[in-house]
């Protein structure tokens, strides 16, 4: 072992500590970077030089040759991160469901006092009023006005829900575009990562970026399975690879024969079962049509019952009365043109010329109490929609809170492995700095040793 070996050993110390300090600096710099995984310089003592064919017996006691940074490790809990992606999908799904349901709730109950049930009450109260004051044109105008309010309420609700459904299409479309971009980015990252790894390099920060992309994809579409080997990651969506190594497939969302549909770019159908996109599909295909259907049921029961009765009456002028409502759904219901034009066309009686006879109006007012939809009255059916949307919003909110809480917990557990702790980094900073100083000191000592040999023992 030569004196110069000490210099070499000290030099490896300097290099290794410097590298370790670099890593610490990188960690501190990324303290607040989302998705950053803490990195750690893995130090290993380098073994003594072993002469070929030699043994401890022949070469004597061997001392190691210093230190080396074997690798810069990325601290990651792969299992937890896999799990978190699943939850991200659920969370994304409940998030969109909650937002949409809350919108529907606002439509159905703009305030606690203003809703379809109230409008129905007012409509039937107007008929009752007419049954008491059949002589007054004012009573007829009241019926006419409340009928217009009621039909407007129906029309608005139908339009709001239909518009919301169209918004779902736009949102899905935007998310599909984003998903395709992410698939491309992921494929590119896969390529880069395998290139870097193939050249023996460290791809830690590329891996961070890839995890972030995966997280976003999970939130969007709930990626169901993925086989993680570092350079050839395969992302499966609905049982088919979306990204395979550096090759990405695309999804397309467009107007097909049966409305807006989602397919692979080769035309094969795809069904997304989790994530925001699944939530949007559920709203568009199940939830919104359900509420629209209930509104239509109420509207058509109202139209047919009121029309059938009204047609048996006579108008204020003594002519046979026509229908009261046009249309047969929440979207199309309207006050019949003749009645909208002239309140006198509202019939309160079946007897021509009986000004004080409000018996038909009384019968019409009693429609409010008839069980027209199952065993529910129209008003009860409208009110039970409020209960239904209330429960739906509650359920979705609870599910979203649960998934968000779970997500936070998992994130915390992941952070326990991957997060940066400043105290720890400060300690490392201290240790590596001292080690660096000490290595420099060893170098000085070695230098002095060499000088001793040269100055004192040297040939003069």
């Amino acid at each position, binding site marked *: 072992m030569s004196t110069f070996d000490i210099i070499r050993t000290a030099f490896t110390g300097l290099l290794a500590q410097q590298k370790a300090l670099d890593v610490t600096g990188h960690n501190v710099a990324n303290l607040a970077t989302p998705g950053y995984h803490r990195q750690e310089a893995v130090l290993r003592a380098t073994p003594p030089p072993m002469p070929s064919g030699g043994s401890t017996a022949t070469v004597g006691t061997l001392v190691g040759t210093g230190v080396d940074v074997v690798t810069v490790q990325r601290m990651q809990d792969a299992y937890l991160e896999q799990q978190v992606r699943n939850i991200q999908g659920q969370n994304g799904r409940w998030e969109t469901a909650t937002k949409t349901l809350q919108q529907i*709730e606002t439509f159905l109950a703009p305030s*606690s006092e203003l809703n379809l049930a*109230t409008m129905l009450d*007012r409509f039937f109260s107007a008929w009752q009023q007419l049954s008491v004051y059949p002589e007054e044109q004012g009573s007829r105008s009241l019926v006419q006005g409340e009928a217009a309010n009621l039909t407007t309420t129906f029309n608005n609700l139908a339009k709001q829900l239909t518009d919301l459904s169209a918004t779902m299409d736009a949102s899905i479309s935007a998310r599909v575009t984003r998903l395709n971009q992410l698939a491309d980015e992921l494929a590119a990252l896969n390529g880069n990562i395998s290139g870097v790894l193939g050249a023996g390099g460290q791809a830690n920060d590329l891996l961070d970026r890839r995890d972030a992309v995966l997280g976003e994809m999970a939130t969007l579409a709930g990626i169901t399975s993925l086989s993680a080997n570092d350079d050839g990651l395969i992302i499966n969506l609905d049982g088919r690879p979306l990204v395979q190594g550096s090759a990405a497939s695309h999804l397309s969302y467009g107007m097909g024969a049966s409305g807006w549909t989602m397919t692979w770019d080769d035309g094969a159908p795809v069904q997304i079962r989790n994530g925001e996109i699944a939530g949007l599909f559920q709203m568009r295909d199940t939830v919104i049509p359900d509420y629209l259907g209930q509104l239509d049921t109420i509207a058509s029961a109202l139209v047919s019952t009121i029309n059938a009765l009204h047609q048996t009456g006579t108008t204020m002028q003594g002519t046979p009365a026509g229908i009261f409502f046009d249309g047969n759904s929440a979207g199309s219901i309207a006050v019949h043109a003749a009645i909208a034009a002239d309140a006198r066309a509202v019939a309160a009686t079946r007897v021509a010329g009986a000004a004080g006879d409000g018996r038909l109006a009384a019968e019409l007012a009693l429609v409010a109490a008839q069980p027209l939809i199952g065993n529910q009255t129209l008003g009860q059916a409208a009110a039970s929609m409020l209960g*239904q949307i*209330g429960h739906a919003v509650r359920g979705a909110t609870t599910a979203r809170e649960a998934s968000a809480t779970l997500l936070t917990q998992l994130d915390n557990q992941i952070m326990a492995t991957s997060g*940066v702790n*400043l105290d720890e980094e400060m300690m490392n900073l201290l240790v590596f700095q001292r080690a660096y100083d000490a290595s420099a000191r060893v170098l000085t000592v070695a230098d002095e040793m060499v000088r001793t040999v040269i100055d004192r023992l040297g040939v003069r």
Partner: protein
Amino acid sequence: MRIANNMMTGNLASHLSRVSARIARLQVEVASGISLQKPSDDPDGALRAAMLRSGLARTAMYEKTVNYAEAWLKSEDTALDTLQRLVREARAVGIAAANPRSPEERETYARQLDQLIDGVKQAANSTDGVHYLFSGFQTLTTPFTGAPAGIGYAGDAGVKAIEISEGMSLTVNHAGDVVFNMGGAADAALPDLFATLATMSARTRAGDSDGLQQSLAELDQHATRLVSVRAETGTRLQQVELASAHLAQTDLVLQDLLGSVESTDLTEAIVHLKEQQNVYQAASYVASSLMNGGLLYWLK
């Protein structure tokens, strides 16, 4: 467990935002006095509130109806009272005229009777302000017209029944044909009230004492019928008052129930609000002191 700095700040931020959300929510509850802002606040409560509100709307509707019925019945009662008084006067005049009188006296009595006919006609054409009380469904048509000798009925036999509470229908009017026996609607053997009075007047002028006795007997029958008609009106008025009291009671009960479903319990809400504000302050303090200290601060 290893703690990362991001964990601490992230958790703290999420707690702070949760507490802020609760504070905002409680502030709205206290400010508006309504704890049931959206159906999702209490889905079953929202359903109940909608039903209760519907019940309140119906109560308000029936209250209007009841007021209308009450006004109508009171008007009718007043008109019937007047009629009874007029018939009594006519009877007194008839009895006086039945004694032997001079032609001048008979003429005076006859004139009195003619005036009474006019009075009866006026009372028979009474309104509740706008609508004729005794014209059946023809409430806008003056029911009794014509000269005292030949007053005809222009109304119909319409019986006006209105709902004064859930499933309870009440007849409010008496059609004029029954009240005045027009066309023998109440008693086919009896001439109508106006004809009876007109005949009485003619018999007075003619000094037909026997005839007057018969007229007086007819008048008695009319008086008896008016009594029973008025008694019926009285009964209806009682029913209406009962219904009105019942509605007021129902209204109170429903208001109370609605209040318990959707109103804010102020004491509770304010206590909660105070609590949450304290939590918020504490959390803010923790946040402000979180980044002080640590090795970074002490290692120089």
